[in-house]
């Protein structure tokens, strides 16, 4: 009846119980708060069923912050283990539990923190920047979010019911095959990634149609803000790369459940198929995360330097070059496969070539600042931190692109330090900069600057303390994912890294304090103009927060930085006529399909097949209901708009 699910799924060691109790307790606490303040109706009507891109964006960011806390706690636990587990000491974590922690840390951080943060900002800002009222398929957008959230929820559920994978976040076979991993851990990983990946794929298609079909009059491609360009490249990567992941996970799934033999060498299969396909998705994924960050900095740096962006066209071409190159470098993740010197040389050189367009972008931002009136606001702090860290990480990446060096350093802590430098220094710092920059747009007040800068310094110092020792440890031969080691010389460096992670923790704490304090004292920093930074693009031409339809009349533009030009010349943007606005209606279908996808995944993890089939039927029923059952749009009449203006 319940497949493999039994009471033993709840058996854990005491540390895992603590995690479980805090998750369940925290969840119950939130439910009680919502019930006490009678927020259920508001939550359901205004958020859960909302198809408004701004609200969906905020929900993405909330999930990303929650998962960031989870991933950070994982990181602290790992660092604590490594700080003490030297020689005879085995630390405080069991081996199985330690493996689950580093796997869950990687999966949560990549798939839910980084992806959530990026899609959050894209949702919030992109339609506003192109002068559109919503995305092309608003319902699909809501559905994508709920698929993403269901995937994240799978990881959380695995803390309480059963175990998570212990294979590392990449889940390579043969280790991930049932012969070596018969339990539910790999299945939790697989389904969590699969449903959130399908959500990302749908999002990618949605935004590509939005950008190409819904720009306001006059916004030709070469007039788009660079953020829009970066998102365009990102969503092309998403819809080209994610099908590979979906197919690859499908093969792993059939290997695990139906005993196909794709990755089983004993039957003529080959685990390197999985590894190649994984990184054929995985390397574009890196650029899916980093390109929007580049776009955000291209918006932020000109605003706080009071200058137009240096080298717009070169910025666009650099983005497109990265888009193409990111698909022909995947093999550098496993030079040791044995592809031979020609293959390794090709992928090594291509990897180094990517550094050129990336370097172009860094120089463009620096030249934008050059002789500008630079304001050192907190987004600019994040930018400067990013430039330093991303350069360090990039140089380490170019080192790893040399197959000869890579043979020595792959799977070492040097590699771990490298990708954390580019992902934290790049993606996260970029997200924090963008979050601070656009926060007033969707709330109507700015964030507290002082706490923001303090949070930045904690992050930067914490980062350097936590990861610079890892570069050294990599050179000294420490491999990744060690739960204990014998070399006593390594311990001081691990202890420094442990101290560093607490600084990062303090930084995150300060960020929460910053948001909390900013909400409480919002009257001091209220933004009535809709343009608190004296900024350049269309999103600032509407009120903060924007009305549900974004723009009462659709603006048209005659060049780049149209809003800035209109402020400078004193000539307001030309506007379309005031007409009735057709807006999409809220719907529960996205939430229901997302929830049923969670039920389906959970059933597949535990082999409860009747439930899996029932939830599939439910999903189909919800789709059919969506097609026939409800009115999709409503009209805001012209008269009402006139009253509001």
């Amino acid at each position: 009846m319940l497949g493999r699910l039994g009471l033993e799924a709840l058996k854990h060691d005491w540390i895992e119980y603590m995690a479980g109790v805090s998750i369940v307790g925290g969840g119950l606490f939130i439910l009680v708060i919502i019930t006490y303040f009678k927020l259920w109706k508001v939550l359901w009507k205004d958020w859960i069923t909302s198809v408004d891109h701004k609200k969906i964006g905020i929900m993405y960011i909330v999930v990303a912050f929650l998962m960031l806390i989870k991933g950070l706690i994982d990181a602290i636990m790992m660092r604590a283990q490594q700080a003490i587990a030297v020689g005879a000491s085995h630390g405080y974590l069991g081996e199985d539990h330690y493996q689950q922690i580093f796997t869950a840390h990687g999966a949560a951080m990549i798939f839910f923190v980084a992806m959530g943060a990026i899609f959050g900002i894209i949702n919030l800002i992109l339609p506003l920047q192109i002068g559109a009222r919503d995305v092309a398929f608003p319902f699909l957008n809501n559905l994508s979010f709920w698929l993403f959230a269901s995937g994240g929820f799978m990881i959380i559920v695995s803390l309480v019911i059963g175990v998570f994978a212990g294979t590392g976040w990449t889940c390579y076979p043969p280790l991930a095959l049932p012969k070596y991993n018969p339990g539910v851990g790999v299945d939790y990983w697989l389904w969590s990634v699969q449903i959130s990946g399908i959500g990302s794929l749908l999002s990618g298609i949605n935004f590509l149609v939005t950008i190409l079909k819904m720009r306001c009059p006059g916004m030709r491609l070469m007039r788009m803000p660079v953020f829009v360009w970066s998102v365009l490249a990102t969503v092309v990567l998403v819809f080209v790369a994610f099908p590979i992941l979906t197919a690859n996970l499908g093969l792993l799934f059939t290997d695990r459940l139906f005993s196909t033999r794709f990755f089983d060498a004993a039957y003529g299969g080959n685990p390197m198929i999985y590894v190649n396909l994984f990184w054929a998705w995985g390397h574009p994924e890196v650029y899916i995360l980093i390109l929007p960050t580049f776009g955000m900095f291209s918006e932020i740096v000109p605003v706080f330097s009071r200058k137009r962006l240096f080298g717009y066209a070169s910025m666009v071409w650099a983005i497109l070059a990265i888009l193409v190159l990111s698909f022909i470098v995947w093999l550098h993740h496993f030079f040791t496969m044995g592809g031979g010197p020609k293959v390794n040389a090709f992928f090594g050189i291509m990897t180094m070539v990517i550094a050129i367009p990336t370097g172009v972008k860094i120089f463009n931002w620096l030249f934008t600042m050059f002789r500008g009136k630079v304001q050192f606001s907190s987004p600019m702090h994040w930018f400067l931190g990013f430039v330093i860290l991303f350069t360090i990480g990039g140089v380490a990446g170019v080192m790893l692109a040399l197959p000869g060096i890579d043979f020595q350093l792959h799977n070492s802590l040097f590699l771990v330090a490298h990708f954390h430098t580019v992902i934290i220094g790049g993606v996260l710092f970029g997200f924090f900069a963008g979050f601070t920059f656009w926060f007033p747009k969707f709330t109507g007040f700015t964030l507290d600057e002082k706490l923001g800068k303090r949070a930045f310094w904690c992050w930067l110092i914490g980062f350097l303390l936590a990861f610079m020792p890892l570069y050294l440890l990599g050179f000294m031969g420490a491999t990744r994912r060690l739960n204990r080691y014998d070399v006593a010389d390594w311990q001081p460096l691990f202890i420094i890294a442990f101290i560093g992670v607490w600084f990062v923790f303090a930084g995150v704490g300060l960020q929460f304090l910053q948001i909390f304090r900013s909400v409480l004292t919002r009257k001091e920093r209220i933004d009535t103009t809709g343009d608190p930074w004296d900024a350049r693009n269309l999103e600032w031409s509407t009120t903060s927060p924007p009305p549900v339809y974004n723009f009462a009349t659709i603006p048209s533009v005659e060049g780049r930085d149209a809003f800035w030009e209109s402020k400078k010349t004193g000539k307001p943007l030309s506007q379309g006529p005031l007409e009735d606005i057709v807006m999409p209606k809220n719907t529960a279908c996205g939430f229901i399909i997302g929830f049923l996808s969670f039920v389906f995944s959970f059933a597949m993890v535990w082999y409860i097949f009747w439930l899996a089939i029932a939830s599939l039927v439910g999903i189909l029923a919800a789709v059919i209901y969506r097609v026939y059952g409800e009115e999709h749009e409503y009209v805001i009449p012209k008269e009402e708009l006139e009253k509001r203006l």
Partner: protein
Amino acid sequence: MSSGVQDTYDRAVFGTWLYILSDFLFFGTLFAVYAFLQKGNDTNKLFSLKYAFGETLILLSSSTAAGLAGAYLHRKDRRNTLIYFFLAWILGAGFAALEFLNLFSIASRNYTWDQSAFLSAYFTLIGTHGLHIVFCLFWMIVLLLPLFFTQIRDVDVRRLTCFRMFWQFLNIVWIFIFTIVYLMGVDGYYG
């Protein structure tokens, strides 16, 4: 069509194109895996080219019928739209039956997918295509049902056009299957 309807139509068709492209990459992955794992395996004892050719003819006829139905759809000719979509459905169902019959007959001769990586790749590639077809047959019924009761509305034109595009995409995938799996495997040994 009014401009709002035209916009919705354009977006839906463009979005479907993109979805088709991404599904192409999904199949492309399966093709790559098949081509890699097929090397050195005898395919003659598994399937016959004639059978596959028959399947191809049926599916292409279905595609033609769907194309005609699409033309009548845009003229809002309800009767002919229904007739030709019905024809496309019958031929598609016949194709799906032949496709799965083929898989069952191979399995019943004791070549099951758990025996080798090559067989896994074959069953997965053909089975995935078959499942796409079956889902489309189901979806065709869902989209055609309202046409029995009302005249063709703009929303029906949009949905059935997107559906027809997807149906023809599945035929193109089959052409690739016919080429890469059946034609190139005609000597029995691949590569």
